[in-house]
């Protein structure tokens, strides 16, 4: 099973409510998967800064003095905002790579959930309502976001096995389904130099998309080629800095419902997830077609990355 939700706001007046709306949608999907839950929010961006959202099983120990330690190692402004087991570290964009290296040295047990200008990913083992409450997702503002509640089939129930997966800067992926060729594809991608952390099938899907894009594909092209190269069942929802996309495998047995109004585009594994959205009774509601890449962008003049999608 697994449950997925996504919400892309066209009406900026709804942005303060994004976290609340997404949380409500995800909690409705709880019976599709009680193992772990996660939410990716595209929120406030600070010019010239990049955010590393990180997780630790020992937040008191690992996040204590982390801003000073990273400042001493990097030599510039570092802010650390702690939220339960997660922390959002903001550093100068130029130090994105250096920051990761320094962090691995200073705090080897800290895991990176996401890297992005506006993206923050929060995920933990547990029910959506508990996970959302720990990170106070309901209070979060943002332009768009995606969420996932997991019923694990292919790998262990752990924080790192939870979705969304960060696939590249400001990119993330959630998945309902199971990939059957993830073992061979993981070997292939690791040989090609991709870093894959877990034995989870979805992480391989995420790494595949990143690898494609690193080799010149747009997100749309990467999603299209995933239809040829990934074997198994999948409904994917992907987030980028400017928008979000949906693709289903050719068999399309994993459910998907979409709704669009002048105010938003919404995705749910089931219609139940959408029933409390404003104006849903007059929304255009439909099922995304199999083997078809859908994409919405905030940019009135989309970049090549989004356009091809």
């Amino acid at each position, binding site marked *: 099973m697994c449950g997925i939700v996504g919400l892309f706001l066209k009406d900026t007046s709804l942005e303060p409510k994004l976290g609340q709306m997404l949380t409500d949608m995800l909690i409705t999907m709880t019976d599709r998967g009680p193992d772990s839950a996660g939410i990716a929010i595209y929120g406030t961006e600070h010019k010239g800064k990049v955010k590393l959202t990180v997780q630790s099983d020992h937040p008191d120990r690992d996040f204590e003095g982390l801003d000073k330690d990273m400042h001493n190692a990097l030599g510039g402004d570092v802010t650390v905002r702690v939220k339960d087991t997660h922390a959002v570290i903001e550093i100068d964009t130029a130090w994105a790579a250096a920051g990761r290296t320094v962090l691995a040295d200073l705090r080897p047990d800290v895991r990176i959930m996401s890297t992005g200008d506006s993206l923050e990913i929060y995920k933990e083992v547990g029910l959506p309502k508990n996970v959302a409450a720990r990170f106070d997702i309901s209070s979060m503002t943002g332009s768009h976001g995606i969420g996932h509640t997991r019923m694990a089939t292919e790998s262990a129930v752990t924080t790192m096995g939870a979705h969304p997966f960060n696939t590249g800067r400001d990119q993330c992926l959630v998945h309902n389904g199971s990939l059957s060729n993830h073992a061979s594809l993981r070997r292939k991608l690791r040989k090609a130099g991709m870093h894959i952390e877990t034995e989870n099938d979805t992480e391989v899907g995420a790494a595949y998309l990143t690898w494609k894009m690193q080799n010149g594909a747009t997100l749309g092209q990467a999603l299209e080629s995933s239809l040829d190269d990934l074997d198994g069942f999948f409904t994917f929802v992907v987030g980028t800095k400017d928008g979000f996309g949906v693709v289903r495998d050719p068999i399309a047995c994993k459910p998907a419902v979409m709704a669009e109004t002048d105010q938003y585009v919404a995705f749910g594994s089931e219609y139940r997830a959408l029933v409390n959205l404003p104006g849903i009774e007059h929304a255009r*509601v439909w099922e995304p*077609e199999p083997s078809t890449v859908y994409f919405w962008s905030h940019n009135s003049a989309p970049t090549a990355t989004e356009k091809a999608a």
Partner: protein
Amino acid sequence: MQTFDLEAQGLRNLNAALQSQSKDTNQTAWEIVNAKGSHAIAVGLDAPIEVTVKGSTGYYCAGMNKQATVRVHGSAGPGVAENMMSGMVIIDGDASQYAGATANGGTLVIKGNASSRCGISMKGVDIVVHGNVGHMSAFMAQSGNLVVCGDAGDALGDSIYEARLFVRGSVKSLGADCIEKEMRPEHIEILKDLLERGECDAKPEEFKRYGSARKLYNFDIDNAY
């Protein structure tokens, strides 16, 4: 008219109330409000009652229906009218995947589009879809009629045994052992009746008929239409 607030009174109470109606009940009209996409609404009914659902439904609405008429004022989630035995189910909006799966009898009318695998393994049901149907519709269909007023997706009637498929629009591709067949006068008559029951004003002459080439299974002449 009995009105049932699903949100306030709960699914088990709803289905228990509907399932306990006898064939000569005087509570013949039911309206369900606050459906909100819930699963398994009005399943296992076995009385000549009329149930109207206000709003869209989740998985398996009107599953295993006998005798009852269930109308959904909205769209239906996966598996609507699955294994229906008799009666009638009408969806005003769209239906998700495997509508009418394995249904033995009765009539399923979908006023909008049906998604993939509509009528999969159908065993005698009549299905009338006003719009289009998705891929793998009537997969392994064994008996009954599927009427599609719009277009059919890929692999229509794949591995079909015996069932009549009538399509007015285009067929993206036919599945294994499914072929176009001659539309004879008796088929026009059958289709006319189906369209009438399906509240559809399309003309029978506009349809093509598809069915089994009977190469894939051990054909018994007694099964033939």
